[in-house]
């Protein structure tokens, strides 16, 4: 067991002792939890990341709306301590099953679904200012990487340039205890929203021609992929370019990669990469690259609503982004990455991306 695991254990014990002493003092048992919502995040202009504010909510045992969650919080904390003690790593789904049981003399379960235990775990991470990885928990892995880099994963050396058509699967835990970087020849990282586009680029050996790493999070990248991007940038000084659909959800994915998310705002330093740049698609590209109008998609009500909300977010205040979102609202359409295939199947890898990178045609 490492010292760091010992620290986490100490934190958990302290957490429990706080409650036990309240009980001994005959105080109403309560715990303070940082509020993890839009109401309690702010945009750190200096570091350009979303940060958790200092508002806390009190989870009180003697509040009918909190009692069950209070018990669940204690149970999750206890279980984390147990798995650290056993020096094993387990999934958040395992955690849910390990804790699910019928409360004595009732027909009620301690947890009814994983959706109950997941946010409790995030509460504990935020309350103890720790990481689930340090709590020996991991999420399902999601995301792939290919390119000229040697990855050291728990003793194995992996050449990401020799992963065939599927690429290297990014683990859920991309912390340095597990993943280290070996020799890297790549000059930048291209993070692609869509797996299908990643496969197109991999097949075209785009990473070889452009000497880069291509990485996909398959939609919104999970913690593992975001942490990996963060470290590639920080440790190897690789520029990060993000390629998504030209729609509100694509832009939001970019913002999460760049500045962190509201829900995990307490982890923005680890998961956010403020220097990431947006390569495309933008609705302006339609004109620039003469993309036929018939592959665009009309904005729906949700798109309109979301776009208007995004205009107000602190982290979309850059003039270029305001212009792009307003332009999108003006023209009234969005488009998917695959729409570029209308210009030919290799248009994206042979024309669109090289030209954008060469001209440094990015959004901040």
């Amino acid at each position: 067991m490492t010292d760091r695991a010992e620290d986490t254990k100490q934190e958990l014990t302290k957490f429990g002792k706080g409650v036990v002493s309240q009980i001994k003092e005959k105080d109403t048992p309560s715990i303070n939890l940082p509020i993890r919502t839009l109401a309690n995040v702010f945009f750190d202009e200096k570091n350009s990341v979303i940060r958790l504010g200092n508002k806390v909510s009190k989870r009180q045992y003697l509040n009918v709306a909190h009692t069950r969650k209070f018990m669940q919080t204690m149970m999750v904390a206890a279980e984390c301590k147990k798995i650290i003690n056993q020096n094993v790593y387990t999934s958040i789904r395992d955690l849910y099953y390990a804790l699910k049981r019928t409360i004595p003399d009732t027909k009620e379960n301690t947890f009814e679904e994983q959706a109950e235990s997941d946010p409790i775990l995030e509460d504990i991470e935020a309350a103890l200012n720790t990481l689930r990885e340090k709590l020996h928990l991991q999420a399902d892995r999601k995301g792939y990487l290919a390119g000229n880099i040697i990855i050291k994963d728990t003793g194995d050396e992996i050449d990401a340039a020799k992963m065939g058509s599927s690429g290297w699967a990014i683990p859920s835990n991309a912390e340095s205890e597990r993943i280290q970087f070996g020799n890297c020849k790549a000059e930048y990282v291209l993070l692609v929203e869509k797996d299908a586009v990643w496969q197109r680029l991999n097949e075209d050996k785009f990473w070889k021609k452009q000497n880069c790493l291509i990485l996909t999070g398959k939609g919104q990248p999970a913690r593992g992929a975001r942490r990996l991007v963060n470290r590639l940038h920080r440790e190897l000084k690789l520029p990060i370019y993000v390629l998504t659909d030209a729609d509100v959800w694509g832009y939001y994915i970019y913002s999460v990669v760049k500045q962190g998310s509201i829900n995990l705002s307490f982890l923005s330093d680890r998961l956010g990469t403020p220097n990431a740049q947006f390569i495309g698609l933008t609705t302006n590209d339609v004109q620039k690259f003469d993309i036929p109008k018939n592959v665009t998609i009309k904005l729906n009500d949700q798109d309109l609503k979301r776009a208007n909300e995004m205009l107000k977010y602190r982290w979309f205040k850059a003039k270029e982004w305001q212009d792009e979102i307003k332009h999108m609202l003006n023209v009234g359409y969005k488009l998917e990455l695959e729409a570029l295939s209308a210009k030919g199947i290799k248009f994206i890898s042979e024309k669109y991306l090289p030209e954008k990178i060469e001209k440094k045609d990015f959004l901040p």
Partner: protein
Amino acid sequence: MTKQEVVEPNIHKQVSISEFFEKNRHLLGYDSKIKAMLIIVKEGVDNSLDATEEVDTLPDIYVKIEELEKEKYKIVIRDNGPGISKNQIPKIFGTLLYGSKFHRLRQSRGQQGLGISMAVLYAQLTTGEPTEVLSSRGNGRTNKFKLKIDVKKNEPVILSEEVIEGREWKGTQVTFICEGIYREHKQSVLEYLKQTAISNPYANITFDSPSGKIDFKRGVEKLPSQPGEIKPHLAGVELGIMVRMLHDTSTRSILGFLTTEFSRVGKTTADEICKKSEIDPRTSPSKITDSDVIKIIKAVKEVKLTRPPTDCLSPLGSTSIESGLKKELDPEFMATVTRPPEVYRGWPFQIEVGIAYGGSITESKLMRFANRVPLLYQQGDCAITKSAQGVDWKRYGIEADKLPKGPVVIFAHMISVWVPFTSESKEAVASYPVIIKEVKLALQEAARKISLYLSGIRKAQAIAERKSIFERYAHETAVALHELTGSKVDEVEKQIKDIVDERWQDLENEKNGDSNKNNKPEEKPEVKEEKKAAKTEEEPAEEKAKKEEKKGE
């Protein structure tokens, strides 16, 4: 039984209609063998109760039903009333429509003098057996009659008559031998007696039934006040009645007739009526023609009449209603309402209701009563039912499908000198709008009381539920704390429960805002914070992004 010497002989009227009712007995409710049993018992018991009340005696009533052979029964009804004089017995039991009640208006159970003699007729028609009447006025002498009815002449036929000396008792006992079928269902003798015991809680009723003896014990020792007698009110008088009254009156002029025979008619009003109907006020009542009567009735509608007096009514009152409901239904809670008297078509009436909730009550029931008599049939046609259906029970926290469902018994009682039944069998109250309105108002008021009670219970349940939540999670919390810190499970669990015991009451008070809020100001805003937080979390804006994020984590 009821018609004793209190009644002056000269106002007894005989109407020869035996033959008519022989052929049309369904008009009086004798349409099935099951129902016939009920009606005979009902007529007997109604008369017994009227008789005992009239002489301020707490009723002791004995009913026996004995199966003689298949579908042939002996029915005995005995009371402790004043007894009936020897010469009245044959007339009362052997003549249809013998009675004085057309002319004497007061709140009573029987109205037409048709009931008991019709039972005699029914027995005679179905088994050929005479009815036996024993009655004593408490002088050691008992008169015993066996009689039938001469259908053609509408006259009693006395088969035997004797005087038994030496037995000290007071009251009347009637024995019928008739066809019938005994059941104990919703509209049975048993149900009738049970409901009678509710609406007459000052009566002791013993029922010796084919399936055993049942006692409906007296709940209150006090009789309701004697209802007063009133004269008819002009607004309610119809042609036939007025013709008869004109025939019977001892007044000498139409003016005198109007002011003397009717309730609250002064000389001015009578003059006005005469003027409008173009009849000389001095005309002798015997000279008034039927067409004059029509004119008078028309004129009555055009003049302003004083409302009839209402002090002639005698409601049971909430103590008696509650006593009746309590002893027969054993509910958890009751609410009663007595409305002020009202008038329909010149007849004073009054509504009183009770709602019994929970306790031993398992299914809902609407109990309708008219002048303390349960109405078991024709529920759908009754004004009371319409009123009850018109109440929005759900508004009062009472589950309902038009009528309440669940453990609710409604007691609704119409009191009047003249109850407007929809038919001769007296099973449903006619739907005068003012009656429907009064019953509805009474039920709504009672329902409000029930609703207050229920919300109290529900609140208490909610409080208990909240406390049980605090207790429910104590064990698992203690186990988790043990795993985290090594604290003792039992000890911490007990300490948590102690804190709950000590503090939850304060929390309740705080929630209700009736305690000094300043006690723990630090807790409230922060509690709000988490609630608010939970809400913001569901902002649609975050939805997709969050979902996708979740998938990855």
